[in-house]
């Protein structure tokens, strides 16, 4: 299985095997770059996140706990954290703003078009993005988008949407519950 392979690579990295780092990089750098790009919307910064993420993976591979999460989850969580750190830091430095990323825009841009010299590929049709996210109610999806791609806190989302804090928390919780359940079904089905 792929995850077994990734876990074996992390074990080898923990033992100081650089070839394993190279293989993991070949397998996952594009995915890491993609999520960083969608959060930061800057190819250069996305590249930096890739390097930081794999460097962190190399240094902390020994702490990876296979019982707690898949290797891909571990890596993606790390990549998103690095990207959000940069985004929040950028936000603190300047009154940075850009068109908020929506999941529908993400799907639209998933067409294989040339985008600033970068080629986009359609995501796996079976991915959660393609199957479950569009089925979420609009308000839940919007709250999730702001949390996931912009790293906004519950309070910040409440402020932006002029909704009560409790409502925002509920929307995000319901959206995440649906995703988790869908993921469970996908895993059971596979």
């Amino acid at each position, binding site marked *: 299985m792929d995850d077994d392979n990734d876990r074996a690579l992390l074990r080898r990295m923990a033992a100081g095997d*650089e070839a394993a*780092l*190279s293989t993991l*990089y070949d397998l996952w*750098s*594009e995915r890491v*770059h*993609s*999520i960083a*790009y*969608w959060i930061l919307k800057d*190819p*250069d910064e*996305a*590249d930096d996140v*890739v*390097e930081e993420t*794999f*460097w962190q993976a*190399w*240094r902390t591979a020994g702490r990876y706990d296979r019982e*707690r*999460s*898949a290797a891909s*989850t571990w890596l*993606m*969580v790390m*990549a*998103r*954290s690095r990207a*959000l750190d940069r985004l929040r830091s950028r936000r603190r430095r300047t009154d940075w703003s850009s068109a908020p990323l929506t999941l529908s825009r*993400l*799907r639209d841009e*998933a067409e294989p078009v040339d985008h600033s*010299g*970068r*080629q*986009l*590929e*359609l*995501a796996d049709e079976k*991915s*959660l*993005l393609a199957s479950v*996210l569009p089925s979420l109610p609009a308000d839940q999806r919007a709250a999730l988008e702001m949390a*996931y791609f912009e*790293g*906004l*806190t*519950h309070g910040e989302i409440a402020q932006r949407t002029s909704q009560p804090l409790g409502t925002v*928390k509920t929307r*995000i*919780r319901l*959206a*995440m*519950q649906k*995703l*988790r359940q869908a*993921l*469970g079904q996908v895993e059971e089905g596979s």
Partner: protein
Amino acid sequence: MSETRVHAELQELLPGAALEILHEGEWEIVRDHVAGCPECDKLLNGYREAAAAIALGAPRVRMDPQRAQGMRARLLSRAQAGKTVSLPSSRKAFSMITRWSGWMVAAGLTGILMVHHSVHRPLAVGWLVAGLLVVLLLGLAVYAGVQKGRVTALEAQLTKLGLSEAQDDRSSHRRT
């Protein structure tokens, strides 16, 4: 507030924890609770898997092949450099001292014995000088070991600085 209620309220924070959008205080409460609650720990991991699935499902953006290769080369070079300098110099010096500790103790005792022997009547200047010389040599050996450790530490820092400078050069070059 009952434990069940706290548990239920904390479960509501778990999606936010998985998305890393909680405030510091909220996160600390969740972290402490999850550490002692296997049910919430499992639930949090489930939410994390769901969050990662969004990332995995995002459309791929291809990297520039040359940049990707360059980044891989830098990572491997850092990993190799990290391995060669990863053992802190103080630990190296310490391990050297540990390895030679038996001889050092022996030399120290010999020196002390010589000095002790020399001060017995009549004063044996030869033994006294020999003893002092042994103690002096022992001190010099320890001092040399510590200095060697410092030099290694400085070399490691220079290596790291060299890598950082290379990265800074790359960043500034890219932005121009």
